[in-house]
């Protein structure tokens, strides 16, 4: 008898879970109903996402989260993610949307739902003083690092592979901050990073003598907002949101605030052209 009881309880539990998932309306409805937007941002990537002096989330991506929540008329709840957490957080429902500088590769688009681009980065070499890196090929003879699982790591590794450099000179780091720490401690001579993060770091006293080097050849890092692939209606909404960010001057405002200059015409044009 006990075994029958056990089995029936298990079936009941599975059925209960099944019923709960069946009842899901679409994401856009859910967010409006619960009156809260759970928005994931990588807060280890200034000036797009970081913790400010009061340990509050801040940055370009955080502003976009708040703009989105405001547009939806709901409360904004910014969650800190690592690069690798982005997809699991969406799949598990911890976040509704991730505004986390996610490169829109076709490979990834098989798993996540991407919006149109909302920003374009350049990948750039940042090296310690005296390393003398003029072109990307000069990296051949120095120790290079990058954060694990980023597109710039992938780009460097495929470039190195094509040139036959091997992996001997390469070190990956757990996070963006660890890569900068590794550079500062001299574990590596140069790191691959984004032009925006580099510009922010170069203003600190630790890195002011470090050298901003060449860009990764022939590569623009075009990033989009991601959500679950199946949420087509929500992705439509997000695309229109991005159009409005440009049209209503919100992009300009966020850019001014976090980069100190006006948003470049070329950036706005490429976002308008979706490329």
């Amino acid at each position, binding site marked *: 008898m006990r075994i029958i009881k056990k089995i029936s309880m298990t079936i009941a539990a599975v059925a209960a879970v099944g019923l709960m*998932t069946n009842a*899901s309306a679409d994401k856009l409805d859910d967010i409006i109903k619960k009156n809260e937007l759970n928005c994931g941002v990588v807060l280890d990537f200034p000036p797009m996402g970081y913790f400010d002096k009061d340990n509050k989330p801040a940055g370009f991506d955080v502003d976009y989260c708040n703009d989105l929540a405001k547009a939806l008329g709901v409360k904004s709840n910014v969650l800190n993610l690592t*690069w*690798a957490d*982005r*997809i*699991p957080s969406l*799949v598990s429902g911890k976040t509704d949307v991730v505004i986390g500088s996610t490169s829109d*590769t076709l*490979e*990834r688009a*098989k*798993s*996540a739902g991407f919006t149109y681009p909302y920003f374009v980065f350049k990948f750039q070499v940042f090296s310690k003083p005296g390393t003398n890196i003029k072109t990307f090929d000069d990296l051949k003879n120095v120790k290079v*690092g990058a954060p*694990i*699982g*980023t597109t710039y*790591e*992938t780009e460097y590794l495929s470039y190195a592979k094509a040139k036959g450099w091997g992996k001997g000179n390469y*070190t*990956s*780091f*757990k996070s963006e901050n*660890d890569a900068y*720490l*590794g550079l500062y*401690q*001299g*574990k590596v001579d140069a790191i691959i990073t984004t032009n925006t993060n580099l510009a922010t770091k170069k203003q600190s006293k630790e890195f002011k003598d470090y050298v901003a080097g060449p860009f990764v050849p022939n590569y623009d890092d075009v990033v989009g907002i991601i959500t*679950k692939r*199946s949420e087509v209606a929500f992705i439509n909404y997000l695309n229109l949101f991005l159009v409005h960010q440009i049209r209503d001057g919100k992009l300009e405002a966020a850019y001014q605030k976090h980069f100190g200059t006006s948003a470049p015409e070329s950036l706005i044009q490429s976002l308008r052209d979706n490329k």
Partner: protein
Amino acid sequence: MDYEFHWNVVLNAWPQLLDGAFVTLHVSVLSMLVGIVIAIFLALGKMSEYKAFSYFSNTWIEIARNTPALFQIYMAYFGLGAFGIHLSPYFAVFSALVFINAGYLAETFRGGFMSIPKTQYSASKSLGMNQFQVYRYVILPQMFRRIHHPMTNQFVWSILMSSLGILVGMNELSGETQRLQSLSFRTLEFFIAAAVIYYLITKFVLFVANLVSKKLFKGDI
């Protein structure tokens, strides 16, 4: 759950996963073997009458057993880095694992040593054996037979903790998994595959450890 599993992505990345698995096996087995040798000395040290020897062993064991592995691996890499000592990610993880393995195993070994009656030492001595021979032929074989199971527990721990190598950018199984999932965003598939590989590595190491113990220490484990 509205998630479709795409296993072919994992199959395509199989060679890279195996490379990572090999590094995991390599670093954990090597750190165990070195850890065992050091642990024997630490255990003898803790029971020793020589103050300096026992202080040294005690300090090692206390730090290894009572601080997080995560902290030790991070310190071996970035902590020493702050003093200009640069270990490679592999060596940082290897030395941290050796340090912890030795600390834990020392206590296990000490228990093993103490479970062997004192009379056996004097009996062996009276047969004309020197100190080394007493340990080599009488004490160690019995001790290893008795502590076989707690020792293999530590093996398992060592394999699983090597996954913390990801903290310092080591390309072991977890690091490789992390990199692969970021390319395709097939996170769940890759993590499940990694878990299966960890399970297989653990089973394999336990199997070999049992064989070796049976051969070396003669008798049922």
